């Protein structure tokens, strides 16, 4: 385990050095990511300013859902979602070979390789939005915070599983950048309170495609709208992570390198 942490440390240092080689690109990327992630909350603000609303949700409560979503992405994207992009290019070029030549788990190497400090911009924008949303709601109790933190862990796990599903797909579906569109299309449902959808869709987004677990369920827990019963999501997330890891390793066997 110590070795793995040392690896993380070394990769973090090296990737940061890589980013600093082009400081203006780094700064611009951060700014653009922040602007991009704040677009939907801005639309929400406009909706509420015009007198419309998500039924049963105040502006700050709706923004809290979106803040949790951006925060979760702010952790997932720099640390492990980058593996989708690196798998996409490395499998197509055959340079994934180089990861297989390292004496560490291939999944870990793939994650380390996709580590992207640029994406910490999302964490910053999520943090700002989260603080703003909290300023407009009643202060949550300790129990609410505990439930939120546990459910936020489930949220990160769901995004981790999605990274593995999409990255795994690329071992067979070589070179398809459409995986990013799939991710955006599917997760966009998670940016809004689950109760605005029909009961069937809401259930689907919670129990079948657990997009609701990314932001809605943790935010609802912080608002005191979910009790301890919502912690079933932890078991569900653990199960999905397990399945995604098995899937990724099974798909890795399809890797056939490139001509050489």
């Amino acid at each position: 385990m110590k070795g793995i942490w040392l690896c993380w440390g070394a990769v973090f240092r090296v990737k940061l050095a890589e980013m600093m080689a082009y400081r203006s690109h780094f700064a611009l990327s951060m700014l653009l990511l922040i602007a991009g992630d704040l677009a939907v909350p801005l639309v929400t603000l406009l909706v509420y300013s015009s007198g419309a609303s998500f039924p049963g949700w105040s502006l700050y409560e709706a923004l809290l859902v979106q803040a949790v979503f951006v925060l979760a992405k702010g952790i997932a994207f720099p640390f492990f979602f980058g593996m989708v992009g690196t798998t996409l290019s490395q499998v197509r070029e055959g340079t994934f070979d180089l990861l297989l030549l390292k004496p560490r788990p291939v999944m870990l190497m793939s994650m380390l390789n996709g580590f992207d400090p640029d994406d910490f911009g999302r964490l910053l924008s999520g943090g700002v939005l989260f603080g703003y949303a909290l300023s407009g709601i009643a202060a949550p109790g300790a129990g609410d915070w505990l439930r939120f933190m546990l459910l936020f862990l489930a949220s990160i796990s769901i995004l981790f599983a999605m990274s593995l599903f999409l990255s795994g797909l690329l071992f067979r579906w070589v070179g398809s950048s459409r995986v990013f569109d799939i991710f955006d299309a599917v997760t966009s449902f998670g940016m809004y309170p689950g109760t605005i959808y029909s009961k069937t869709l809401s259930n689907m987004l919670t129990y079948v495609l657990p997009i609701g677990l990314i932001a809605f369920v943790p935010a609802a827990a912080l608002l005191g709208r979910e009790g301890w019963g919502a912690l079933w999501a932890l078991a569900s997330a653990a199960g999905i992570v397990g399945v995604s890891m098995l899937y990724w390793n099974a798909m890795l066997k399809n890797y056939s390198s490139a001509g050489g």
Partner: protein
Amino acid sequence: MDMIEVKELTRTFTIYERGHTLREVAKSLIRRPMKEVRAVDSISFNISQGELVAFLGPNGAGKSTTLKMLSGVLHPSSGDIRCMGLVPWKQRREYVRKIGAVFGQKSQLLWDIPPSDAFYMNKAIYGVPDKEYKETLDELVELLQVGDIMRKPTRQLSLGERMRCEFIMAMLHRPDLVFLDEPTIGLDMIAKENIRNFIRSMNRKKVTFILTTHDLEEVELLAERVMVINHGRIIVDDTLSGLRKRLGDKKTVRIVTELPVPDELPAGLRIMERIRPFEVELEVDTEILPLRPFISQFNEQFGILDMAIEELPIEAVMKELYSEPDVQSYAAAPVQNLFQVNNGKTRSLD
């Protein structure tokens, strides 16, 4: 004891085929005809520790696929590999700690930062202790003379400098076995010489090297043993001198004469190149016409003014081997059964 044992190794790939016409492209949206390609076809060989073996073959012959299976990157379709007692694709993590790889066309360095940072990252990935890392790095830096360049961003280095750093990346964890896939591709003579000297010095320390290249000069300068792969099969597994003798015991003779040499020559002689009317390059099959009678007869007939005798270039041997479309494996077959010589011309393999 053998370091590498390969038995009946086979790898097939399924490839999708489609034509280039609009009709064929449209058809391929619904149904894509599949074709199974046997990239490596039931090959077997052993390699001992400290050997420097060259894998040769035309493009698409199966060299790189074999190398990828040997390094644990690809699973074979069938057959078995034991390298240092391990099965590369089953005990991958334990195995890759003991091997290194340099790919002429795939860089392990990081483009925007200095090689020294990439070395540091490899140290952590391989878990090399600080003291060992420093000792190895100092030794490699001195051998490859990269002390002044390893702190420059990789993108500012020349190809030769980058390749030297690639070797450091591959050797930092002190591997026992190193795979080299066209390591000197695109390099100038000086850079090639540096790399070759380094390979030789490591090989003297009992590091085993498996080299794939199209640079036959490199093979002549480095490898003791040559395996030629074509159509996924090993067609030659021999020493370099043994490989030359597969075309018969032949010499190249560059000769300047008093009288012009005619196109028609007796058995055992063939004009390879006519340089000037009185200067030719001949291929002499010394099994048919030994050198002494050749020189005396040639001198009598044409009057020798100057002469240089050399081994038959390895290129000529390889050209002959590569040109065979359906050549059968003859790695262990006796040399005299493989070629027939008729009127001084080498014929195809049986």
